[in-house]
C-alpha cells in the first residue's frame, strides 16, 4: 500500500499538487490520469523521492519515506524519455542495480537472464541502447527497474514516446507482466484509453487535485463530475445534459422516439436534429447533428443501425438518450 497524505508542492505561487491524498493498494495497477500539466508526474516523482514535498507525507508499505532519498525507498522507476545508461550493454543496464549492490555474480546472471526473457530481450543482451528500437528500450528500462525487486514500480508515461501501434502492444504486454509479477504499479498517462485498458484503478487528476478515484467501469459509467466524464470519453451536449455519443439513439419517426423515450426515467427528452455529416469510423458511424436550437452534437451508432436508417445529409432525425448512468447535469459554465 502506498499512502499519500495531504501532499502539497508549490512552484512559486503555483500549486502543482494541491493537498493530494491517495491510497494505492498493494498489488494493484493504478493509473494516474489527467491532462498535461495536471501534476501527474509531480505526484509520481514525489512518491519516488525524486521531488521533495512542501508538506504532506508518503508511506510505502507502512514505512514513512517522506524524508528518504529515492535510493532508500525500494522503488523501480521508468521514465518517458529513455533514461537508459547509454555506455552500457542491455545486460549491464539490467544488471547494474545488482552489481552496485555487490550481489554474487551467479545470482545476478540468473536474475538478468530471467528478466530479459520476461521482457523478450534475451537475444539482445550484448547490444547498446542506441541499437534498440524505442519499444525495446522501454522494455529494457522495465527489466532494469524490476531487477532490484522493488516494492513499487513507478512508470511515468513509459510508452508516451512510442508510436500508436507499439504503444497498444506494450500496454497489453505490461498488463500481462503485472499479472505475472504482481508488484504494486503506478502508471502515469494522459491517454484515457491506455488507463481504461490496463489499470484496475484510476485516479483522475486535474490542476493538482484528484477529481475521482475508482475502477475503470465506475469512472466511465458514474463519473463524479463533468471533468471526469469529459476526460474519460467523448461527450455530447444533449439538451441540457452531457451524454456519451454512443448512448444516443436516432429514430426516423418522432412518435416512436417519444414512446421509447418515455420508458427511460429522467431522460433529457427527444431532440429533433438535422444530419450534417455521416462519418464512417470502421465498426461504428459518427453522425454529426444540429438541433433546432442550433446546438451541434454527435451520435455514434453502429454501421448496421446507420444502414437501417438510411441517413442522408440534410435529413431530419429524432434523437433520444439511453444509458442513464452516464448522464450528468451540465455545469452551467459549460452549457451551450
Amino acid at each position, binding site marked *: 500500500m502506498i499512502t499519500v497524505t495531504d501532499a502539497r508542492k508549490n512552484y512559486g505561487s503555483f500549486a502543482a499538487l494541491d493537498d493530494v491524498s491517495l491510497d494505492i493498494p498493494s498489488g494493484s495497477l493504478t493509473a494516474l490520469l489527467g491532462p498535461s500539466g495536471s501534476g501527474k508526474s509531480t505526484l509520481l516523482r514525489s512518491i519516488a523521492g525524486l521531488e521533495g514535498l512542501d508538506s504532506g507525507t508518503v508511506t510505502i508499505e507502512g514505512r514513512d519515506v517522506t524524508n528518504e532519498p529515492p535510493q532508500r525507498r525500494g522503488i523501480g*522507476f521508468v*521514465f518517458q524519455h529513455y*533514461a537508459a545508461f547509454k555506455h552500457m550493454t542491455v545486460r549491464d543496464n539490467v544488471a547494474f542495480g545488482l552489481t*552496485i549492490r555487490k550481489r554474487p555474480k551467479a545470482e545476478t546472471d540468473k536474475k538478468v537472464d530471467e528478466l530479459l526473457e520476461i521482457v523478450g530481450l534475451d537475444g539482445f543482451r550484448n547490444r547498446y541502447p*542506441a*541499437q534498440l528500437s524505442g519499444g525495446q528500450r522501454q522494455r529494457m528500462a522495465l527489466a532494469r527497474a524490476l531487477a532490484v525487486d522493488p516494492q513499487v514500480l513507478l512508470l511515468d508515461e513509459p510508452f508516451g514516446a512510442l508510436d500508436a501501434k507499439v504503444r497498444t*502492444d506494450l500496454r497489453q504486454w505490461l498488463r500481462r507482466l503485472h499479472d505475472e509479477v504482481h508488484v504494486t504499479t503506478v502508471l502515469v498517462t494522459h491517454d*484515457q*484509453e491506455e488507463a481504461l485498458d490496463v489499470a484496475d484503478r484510476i485516479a483522475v487528476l486535474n490542476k493538482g487535485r484528484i477529481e475521482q478515484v475508482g475502477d475503470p467501469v465506475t469512472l466511465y459509467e458514474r463519473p463524479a463530475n463533468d471533468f471526469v466524464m469529459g476526460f474519460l470519453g467523448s461527450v455530447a451536449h444533449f439538451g441540457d445534459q452531457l451524454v456519451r455519443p454512443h448512448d444516443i439513439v436516432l429514430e426516423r419517426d418522432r412518435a416512436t422516439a417519444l414512446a421509447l423515450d418515455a420508458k427511460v426515467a429522467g431522460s433529457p427528452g427527444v431532440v429533433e436534429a438535422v444530419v450534417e455529416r455521416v462519418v464512417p469510423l470502421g465498426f461504428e458511424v459518427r453522425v454529426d447533428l444540429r438541433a433546432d436550437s442550433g446546438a451541434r452534437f454527435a451520435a455514434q451508432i453502429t454501421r448496421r443501425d446507420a444502414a437501417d436508417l438510411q441517413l442522408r445529409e440534410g435529413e431530419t432525425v429524432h434523437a433520444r438518450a439511453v444509458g442513464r448512468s452516464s448522464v450528468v447535469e451540465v455545469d452551467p459554465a459549460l452549457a451551450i
Partner: protein
Amino acid sequence: MTTTSAVRPVATDQQPAAAPPPTTRPDHAPALTVVPRRNPWTWVGVAAVAVLVAMFVNGLATNPGWDWPTFARYFATETVIKALGTTIQLTVLGTVAGFVLGVVLAAMRLSPNAFLRSVAWAYIWAFRSIPLIVQLLFWFNIAYLYQSISFGLPFGPSFGSVATNDLFGALGAAVLGLALHQAAYAAEIIRGGILSVDEGQREAASALGIPRRRQFLRIVLPQAMRSILPNAANEVISLFKGTSIVSVLAIPELFYQVQVIYGRNSRVVPLLLVATVWYIILTTLLSVGQYYVERHFARGSSRTLPPTPLQRLRTRLAAFGTSTSRAAGTTTAGVAR
C-alpha cells in the same frame, strides 16, 4: 474526448526490415556506375594546388639550404634523444598534474557552495588571463618572493622547512607552471563534459538505489568522457608543443637543446627541422592514440562505431575482390548468350 488515433502504417519492433524494391534490371545489361558530378572550377583548383605542392616538395629535395645531411647527423644523436625525453616528461607531468587539479576545480565549480564556486571561477579567470611564458618566469623567480617553504599547520607551528630553490629547480618551476596553466583549461573541459550528460541519467541511477558518489563515477563520468576526450587530447597535444616555451627557463628540452646546438654550429635551419620532425612524429602518435581512446568511449553513443582505419582497408579490399569477380561473371553471361 476520445482521440481517434490516426490510422497510419507503423513499424512495430519485430517487423522484418523492408524488402528491397524489386529490381527488374536484366542480368546481362551492364551495371550503371554512379559518378559524382564534377565542377570545372574544382579541376582548376586541383591543378593550382598540385603545382604548389610539387614546387614545395621539389624545394625540400633540391634546395641545399635545408641541409639534409646535417639534419640526418643530428636527428638521433644522444643529446637530441635525451632532450626529447625531457620534453615528454614535461608533457606527462604537466598533463597529469593539470588534469588532477582540473578535476578538483571542475568539482568546485559545480559545487552547491558559493564560496568554492567563486574560488574556482577566480582561479580559472586568472590563469587563463596570464600568458604561459609570463607565468613560467614568475615561478622560476619564486625563490625571490619566498626564500623558504615550511611545512606545518596553517598560521601555526612549523615542522620543518626547505629552501625554495631546492624544492623548485627550473624543472619544478616548469612543471608547476605548465600544470597550473593546464588545470584552468582542463577544469572547463571537464565541467562542460559533466554538464553534457543528461540529468535523467542521474535520476535513473537514483531511482535504482545508487548512492550519489557512485552515480558520478559509474554513470556520469564515463559518459562525460565522450565530450571531454577530444578536447582533452587537443590540450595534451598543445601542451606537448607548448613545452617549447619552457626553453626560456634554460631547461634542456628539445627546443632548447636544438637552439644550443645551432648556437654552436650556426646551422639553424636543419636543426629547427630536427625539432619540427620530432614534434610532428609525436603529435601523430598522440592523434592515433586519441582516435582509439575516443572510439572506446563512443561505445553506445551511436548505432555503429566508425570502422578503424585497418577495418576500412579490409572492407575496401573485400569490395574490390567482389567487384572484379562480378565483372567476370557478367562477361561469361554475355558470352553464353
